[in-house]
């Protein structure tokens, strides 16, 4: 007990310390420090070898240096990190961060638009910078996420669009969305249609079954619709290239699809079953789209195809039951090891917001079932950055990259590890959050009379 109390007090002191330094926790007038030197830390750069007693220098939002015996800039705030470890901040590659506050309250949910084709909606528009989920998730060492619209969800009313909109890569901190943006349009969401023989009818609130032939017909119709949208986007792109001479009417939906058909913007294709994945791969190949697979419960069944087409995967949590009752019980847990051995590139993600803090736990579970540790660590840092085309900015601790950095007292994937310091764009950022505040408040509740 005394040990527990000691820990708690230590934490409080630590938080107070952060309040003094933090930009997000302090008043708007105070100018945050612009350079830091994290000293005597074990530094996991993820780009080169691990440094045992190294220094990481942060200046003007970026990593100014990583190594041993570096020059410390004058006026830098020094942090003695003896016994601590430094990593790039974790990256959750599929979330509804800021798009959903309380799942059951539709007024607080902005994750999924109505209608099937919404290529012009952008997640960043609706990400609520004051969402309580952001600091809660940040406390788990997550410094950036992909906010994904239109990707379904148990609170999306059972609907879900086909083209869900544009996903935005954001920092997990900043006063307003402009400060949070890493890449406003990082991927176009495509929920690959399923052949559904079982559906749920909300008007009668009952389950409906339909014959396979009918379900297949509907599936084909939806795929044709996608093809049609892409065709029109291609024509639109041609008209745009010709400029005003083409005399075309502006269409914001088609305009949003232009980077997709040009192969500039990746398509984040949500599919889990092998058949759907195969169909989606074939489709994207034919349409010359840059595909990123999201979900991938049965990616192992098509690993050679994914490898040969160089299609990366953002895997749904390992802590998910297998799709079929005759699957091995650890089917999803052992899949990452199998994909890594086959040379398929993948990242891990929570596919959620309130469960985002389980990102490290999921990665650790993949290690428990055979994935090399380094691969697991990269699957929550470097690989998502590479998959989303922002590895030039984040994902490793290299000079010149944005300083999204965490300092921990241990393995960041382990359940009991604490994040001690967290930097976003070089700013020492508060680890305070709704949960910690409620804990402190009720820890102090006197005995009732």
């Amino acid at each position, binding site marked *: 007990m005394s040990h*527990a109390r000691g820990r708690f007090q230590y934490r409080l002191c630590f938080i107070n310390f952060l309040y003094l330094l933090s930009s997000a926790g302090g008043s708007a007038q105070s100018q945050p420090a612009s350079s830091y030197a994290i000293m005597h830390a074990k530094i996991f750069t993820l780009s080169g070898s691990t440094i045992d007693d190294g220094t990481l220098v942060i200046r003007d939002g970026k990593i100014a240096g990583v190594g041993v015996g570096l020059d410390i800039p004058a006026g830098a705030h020094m942090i003695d990190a003896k016994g601590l470890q430094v990593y790039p901040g974790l990256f959750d590659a599929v979330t509804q961060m800021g798009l959903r506050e309380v799942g059951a309250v539709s007024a607080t949910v902005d994750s999924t638009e109505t209608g099937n084709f919404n290529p012009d909606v952008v997640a960043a528009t609706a990400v609520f910078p004051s969402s309580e989920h952001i600091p809660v998730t940040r406390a788990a060492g997550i410094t950036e996420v992909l906010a994904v619209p239109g990707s*379904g969800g148990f609170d999306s009313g*059972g609907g879900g669009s086909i083209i869900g909109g544009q996903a935005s890569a954001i920092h997990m901190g900043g006063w307003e969305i402009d400060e949070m943006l890493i890449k406003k349009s990082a991927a176009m969401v495509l929920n690959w249609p399923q052949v*559904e023989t079982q559906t749920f009818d909300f008007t009668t609130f009952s389950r409906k079954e339909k014959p396979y032939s009918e379900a297949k017909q509907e599936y084909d119709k939806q795929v044709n619709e996608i093809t049609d949208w892409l065709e029109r986007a291609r024509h639109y792109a041609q008209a745009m290239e010709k400029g005003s001479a083409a005399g075309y009417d502006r269409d914001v939906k088609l305009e949003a699809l232009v980077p997709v058909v040009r192969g500039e913007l990746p398509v984040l294709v949500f599919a889990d079953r092998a058949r759907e994945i195969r169909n989606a791969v074939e489709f994207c190949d034919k349409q010359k789209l840059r595909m990123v697979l999201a979900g991938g419960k049965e990616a192992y069944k098509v690993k050679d195809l994914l490898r040969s087409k160089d299609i990366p995967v953002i895997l749904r949590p390992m*802590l998910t039951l297998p799709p079929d009752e005759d699957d091995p*019980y650890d089917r999803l847990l052992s899949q990452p090891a199998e994909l890594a051995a086959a040379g398929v590139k993948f990242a891990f993600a929570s596919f959620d917001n309130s*469960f985002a803090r389980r990102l490290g736990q999921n990665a650790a579970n993949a290690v428990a079932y055979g994935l090399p540790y380094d691969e697991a660590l990269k699957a929550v840092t470097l690989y998502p950055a590479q998959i989303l085309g922002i590895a030039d900015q984040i994902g490793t601790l290299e000079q010149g990259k944005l300083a999204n950095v965490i300092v921990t007292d241990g393995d960041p994937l382990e359940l009991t590890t604490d994040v001690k310091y967290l930097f976003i764009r070089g700013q020492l950022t508060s680890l305070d959050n709704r949960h910690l505040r409620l804990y402190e408040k009720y820890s102090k509740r006197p005995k009732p009379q």
Partner: protein
Amino acid sequence: MSSKTFRILNLLYVFCFLYGPLARPATPPDAPAVIVIQNATILTVSHGTIEHGSILIKDGKIAAVGQTVKAPKDAQVMDAAGQFVIPGIIDCHSHIALEAINEGSVSVSSMVDMEQVLNPEDIDIYRDLAGGVTAANILHGSANAIGGQTLVIKLRWGQPAAKLPFEGAMPGIKFALGENPKRSNFSVPGQPRRYPATRMGVEETIRAAFAEAGDYKKAWEEYNKRAAAGEKNLIPPRRDLRLEPLVEVLEGKRYVHSHCYREDEILMLLRVAKEFGFKVRTFQHVLEGYKVADELAAAGVGASTFSDWWAYKVEAYDAIPYNAALMTRRGVVVSVNSDDAEEATHLNQEAAKSIKFGGLSHEEALKMVTINPAMQLGIDKWVGTIDVGKDADLAIYNRDPLSAYAVVQKTLIDGRVYFDRQRDIAERPEREKEKKVLIEKLKKSEKKPEEKKPDATVPSGQKKPEMKKTEEKKPEEQPKPPQNGASDSAAVLSGGAL
């Protein structure tokens, strides 16, 4: 049923309660009578950690524990070098092994009994076994203020339904407070709202039911008294299946497990319980339990909560991962439960989170999935720690179980190995082969032109519509990340609602 039968039934309950241990079955036939687990790190939970220790199991019970254990020559030796043994995990809130979860059409459904809908072939039993779970509290859903009757089972995979119930364990009943029983998040278009629709109505529903149950109890007592006095031509009261379980609650023969979230509704049920003279055994979820921890401790009621679920509905917006630790520190017996077949596969990890969130010790954290839920379910005299005389219900990990890197190697119930990871892996090629043969058989039978089944065209690899999908067996709380596609709607369907 005659009053005599009713009295016998009552007596039987008393009998089970008093003599439960004697009525428990011997070792299953295919388990060796004597097993010795050797060279293990044993986390006893009751008396510390034993390095390089041994556990002797005789007839399904723990016969000896220690660094040196004398094993008879005929004992089957299980070498556990480098491995960690803990008491089997007990999940205090589960909905596995069930054909149905909610009888949600009425506000008081105490007449329904989960034991009648046990499904021993539910694959989730095996999946949870593979997560080290040996016993689970099988609950009715939370669609109504007073839900159905509940029971504790052991996860004896492969045994018939009759072999699942935990012998001697007190039966229970599910209550529910807050958003679910008032149907805040569920509505069927075109149907009127069911009473209650407010927390006031939830309280009134419970009070009204217990007022009735009190009268019913009195009527029977009066009848039994007069019958015992030899009075002739008495007409017994009409038997009421809805009130009988509530009478058992009043008589202390049935535990109340109440789903709840908010601080106010927790105190509300404690007041109602006091008014009618019954005890609440556990508050389930109890995500705001940390706000009223002293009141919970004073009432001697257990709290069974989630590790870190939050924000899936308004009443879960003040949920904090420090809940378990804060309640523990204020003297409440706390367990961490799953409410979900998947979550149950890593309850060891969920318990470990209280070390980080709130600074509990390793042992305090481990207790929350072993002895604490055992105490809450009144089965601690048989399970929950590694002590001589207790059932040999054990989980064996390849490393410290309070780590995300730990993997269950074996799970034993009554000294019998019900899960063995190495055996599971070794048997996979054989199972694949069997599946292929079955699929071929099915394909052949479908080629006959006269049999025009609607799903005959379903390609292999896709499940037939009537087979249950994993996604359909969602927990009643539904906070888990979404599954893609149609299952979302299925989730809404089963989401504590129907």
